[in-house]
């Protein structure tokens, strides 16, 4: 059977080259996760593009389904396109589920380096690069070592080891090959170990059993989201430093209030529905 995809809440389009007129009883549509419970098919029509199957129950546009042609025995799988899923993960990690403002991770580093815009940008860039590297390495180790050997309880120890190892390597390599770059970004590289986002990403990937590309998308999204949060925050704090803030609120307290306001505005992204 050829390609099939969901066109709206109740309809699946099957692109068949041969115009097979289907009957209601000749198709069986189930979810991939649970192939024992078929959907009730109310109508099967032929259009110029292929066969349109209408179901009684509603379908999720991002769901994974299996369509079987009982007459010929062919099976078509319906899955959202990988690129779409990756973009959804990326945007969701950046905005809807921003690690700083909605999951409250990486706050120590966030408040520590967001006082000046220049340091904020440096930290954001460094963190994104190292985060993607460590996310990938952690995925490889989890997929090919921890998972096959059922060593899930070692995840925390192994992941933190990978991160510490990677941070050391990046630091040394940068120092030996790009001394100017190291003078500028070296301090951020060392600080990365204390950022809990970098540990949270591999743990989340492992918990939800994500594949390689999805893991990479989450790593990249979390890094970009962190960089975005740092940039916004540092811009606001530079202004707050020049404003007549009450004495007891100077410094960290006002920074927390500002972060709260940012978190409130990030709530607005939850309407994106990714």
């Amino acid at each position, binding site marked *: 059977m050829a390609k099939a995809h969901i066109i709206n809440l109740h309809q699946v389009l099957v692109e068949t080259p041969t115009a097979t007129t289907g009957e209601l009883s000749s198709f069986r549509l189930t979810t991939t996760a649970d192939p024992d419970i078929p959907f009730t098919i109310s109508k099967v029509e032929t259009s110029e593009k292929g066969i349109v199957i209408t179901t009684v129950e509603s379908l999720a546009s991002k769901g994974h389904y299996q369509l079987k042609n009982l007459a010929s025995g062919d099976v078509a799988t319906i899955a959202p396109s990988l690129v779409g899923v990756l973009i959804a993960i990326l945007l969701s990690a950046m905005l809807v589920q921003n690690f700083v403002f909605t999951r409250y991770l990486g706050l120590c580093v966030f408040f520590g380096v967001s006082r000046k815009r220049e340091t904020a940008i440096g930290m954001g860039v460094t963190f994104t690069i190292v985060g993607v590297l460590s996310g990938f390495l952690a995925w490889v180790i989890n997929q090919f070592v921890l998972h096959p050997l059922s060593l899930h309880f070692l995840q925390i120890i192994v992941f*933190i080891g990978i991160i510490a190892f990677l941070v050391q390597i990046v630091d040394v390599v940068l120092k030996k090959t790009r001394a100017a770059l190291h003078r500028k970004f070296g301090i951020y590289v060392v600080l990365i170990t*204390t950022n809990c986002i970098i540990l949270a990403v591999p743990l989340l990937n492992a918990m939800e059993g994500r594949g390689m590309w999805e893991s990479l998308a989450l790593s990249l999204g979390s890094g970009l989201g962190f960089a975005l949060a740092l940039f916004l925050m540092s811009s606001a704090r530079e202004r707050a430093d020049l404003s007549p803030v009450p004495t*007891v609120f100077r410094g960290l307290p006002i920074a927390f209030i500002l972060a*709260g306001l940012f978190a409130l505005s990030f*709530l607005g992204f939850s309407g994106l529905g990714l």
Partner: protein
Amino acid sequence: MSEHPPLPPKNRELIWRGLFSENPVFRLALSLCPAVAVTSSMKNGFLMGVAVLAVQVLSSMTVAIARNFIHDKVRIPVYTIVIAVWVSVIDMVCAAVAPEIYAQIGLYIKLIVAFAIIISRLEVFASKFAFLPSTIDGFGMGLGFCFAMVLIGAFREVIGNGSIWGIELIPIKPLLLFILPAGGFFTIGLLMAAMNWIDVKRGGKLPTLGGGHG
């Protein structure tokens, strides 16, 4: 390690330092992630506080015992591994003891590994002093953290949900905002400002413009 280690401070003073004068959350501005993340209710805050207390005491004890065998050059990786081992243990204990709360805050318990407060106590204290004072220092700091978590959790639960420890106090929800993500930031900002205010009232001077680091 020097031949004559400095004399450890008195036990009472160690506890007091952890609880108030060097409170990890309000004073040192360390380990803020859990302080905002899991304190939407007092129960969650309490479990998190107890978990950190246990990890802190156990890691301090381990490092205090092993401090003479740890080479200076590799001490930070060794501390990290020690913490990671104890976090793995506490993580499993929490999952077994309080499964409902664990379902909400499990990720944050795993992330105790990356908390600056624990490694900084190992570096500053446990690597220099003997077993007993290190244990008490770890206990004091853990207690201070637990105290801060319970305080923030209670504040947010009363204002946001009108209840405390899951028991309803007032039939309305005064400011739902405070149990939402943003409320955690506001609460800590306000509590920090309140602590500064108390300091000013008592005649002390403002603490230097601290910047949460590590």
